[in-house]
């Protein structure tokens, strides 16, 4: 597809990879919102990103930010600020970047799945949940107008193996924060440090409306496990989600009421959809009811 005309999506800071994925030896050649791009490590050690034409020639240079272990770029002229995560400055935390999983679906479906508590016992069996403890207790979901973010608080779920560092089941407390249609962070009870939250972040790179790469990181208090162990745990979780995400029909996220029937447990998803609708985002959204084809793309 060609570069999107969705003004909101164009003016977001979007992930295109980890810092270490762009080296002097190896550029990252990828796509963003339908636009082919190329990221290179320049002579001064910083990362440059350019739009490229179909034959791979560099065109317009794009604004770049190197933050949170990742590279962010924007295709727009007046981008909204990238989220702030003050926890990155906290003593004792460790950043482990996970890499990405390519998923053939709308980037919005991937974010919505990340916000979902009800699927834990069925998709992440014996990791993030298991029958018969399937109940999703009431929690609070809201759009915080002052910061223009979606938040879900007071979430809790009984988990068999909530994190790599967990040895027993625990009642995990969760908070979800959505700062962009493509970026969300989960704050979760730390299994080894009472009162502290571990962070799990999801940066979704929208390649096309129905194709994305889900980049993620963890920022826990954890001195026991190696980076590789933490990475394997998160990758296991993401790979359990992928077959689900690639079998939802339609692939694009429906925002028309009645096309999908939520329950109370879906309050975060409903709030996220309401927020997307308010922003008039069209990228990755099912276009109209007549389009409701019962076929995968």
């Amino acid at each position, binding site marked *: 597809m060609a570069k999107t005309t969705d003004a909101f999506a164009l003016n977001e800071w979007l992930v295109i990879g980890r810092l270490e994925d762009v080296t002097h030896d190896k550029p990252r050649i990828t796509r963003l919102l339908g636009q082919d791009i190329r990221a290179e490590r320049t002579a001064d050690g910083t990362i440059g990103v350019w739009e490229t034409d179909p034959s791979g020639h560099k065109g317009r240079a794009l604004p770049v930010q190197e933050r949170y272990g990742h590279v962010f770029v924007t295709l727009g002229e007046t981008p909204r600020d990238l989220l702030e995560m003050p926890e990155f400055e906290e003593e004792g935390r460790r950043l482990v970047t996970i890499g990405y999983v390519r998923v053939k679906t709308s980037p919005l479906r991937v974010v919505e799945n990340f916000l*979902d*508590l*009800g*699927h834990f*016992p*069925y*998709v992440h069996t014996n990791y993030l949940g298991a*029958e018969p403890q*399937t*109940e*999703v207790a009431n929690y609070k979901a809201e759009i915080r107008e002052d910061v223009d973010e979606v938040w879900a608080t007071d979430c809790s779920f009984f988990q068999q193996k909530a994190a790599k560092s967990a040895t027993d089941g625990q009642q995990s407390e969760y908070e979800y924060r959505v700062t962009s249609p493509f970026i969300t962070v989960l704050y979760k009870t730390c299994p080894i440090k009472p009162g502290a939250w571990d962070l799990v972040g999801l940066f979704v790179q929208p390649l096309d409306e129905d194709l994305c790469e889900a980049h993620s990181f963890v920022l826990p208090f954890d001195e026991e496990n190696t980076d590789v162990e933490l990475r394997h745990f998160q990758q296991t979780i993401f790979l359990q989600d992928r*077959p*689900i995400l690639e*079998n*939802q*029909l*339609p692939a694009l996220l*429906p925002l028309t009421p009645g096309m*999908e*029937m*939520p*329950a*109370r*447990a879906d309050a975060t998803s409903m709030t996220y959809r309401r927020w997307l609708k308010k922003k008039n985002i069209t990228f990755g959204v099912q276009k109209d009811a007549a389009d409701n084809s*019962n*076929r995968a793309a």
Partner: protein
Amino acid sequence: MEQTSWIVAGLSAGLFEGSVMPVKTPGKDLAVWRQRSGQANAVEDRCPHRGMRFSMGFVRGDQLACRYHGWEFDGTGVCKNIPAHPNLQPPKTICAKTFACQEVNGFILVHVGDDSAAMPAEYSELESENLVPVRSVYLDASIETVRHWLMQTAFPPFAVGQDGPDTLVTYIYDNPGENLVRISAQTGAAKEELIFALQSLDDDRTGVHVQVSGMGSEEEMPAVQQHVSRWLADLRFRLESNDQNELNNLKISA
């Protein structure tokens, strides 16, 4: 492309108790599943909650559960259980779109049209006493092509005529409905029959669901099924090879 209001979705013997299978039709994707108590059902292949394919789900007792959140639906498509809210009676508004599903003489038939067409009579007219299911095969050819070649195949895989060239066999080709082909072989008083139910998946793909009758005793059936299966594999090779010589070999010689 053909879209009839009733389609054949498979062989009854191919759908086990407690299992669910995806069924393609030119217009829509279905999930066909069998309750533990035996009843077969057809539902749109999409959970009304978050659009997940039901065909990747699982059967619990007499209910079909979605793989994503475990929501359970009965044979009429009504949601009976939302695990996230165990104490909640699911609202009646939450239901999956279902299609009439009937099993007739070993075939699973599904009414996919919006019309009120009655089930095609040719399926109930099959002699039911001694039908034996063989298998389903899926061919990269249109339903018209498959029907065409079945109706003029020169060497249908009957048991008679295998003993030598001197047996006098009369073949009868019948196409009693647009998706049913019956080929019988009459040898004196004995009659063998091959029954092919055709399922259009899309313009270029066709499912063929095969049963036989009168082709031997119960002990002989495994050999008969193998023989017919081998013939079907050969038919598939020839149809998919696009080789006119190969296709001509299927024809009845003039």
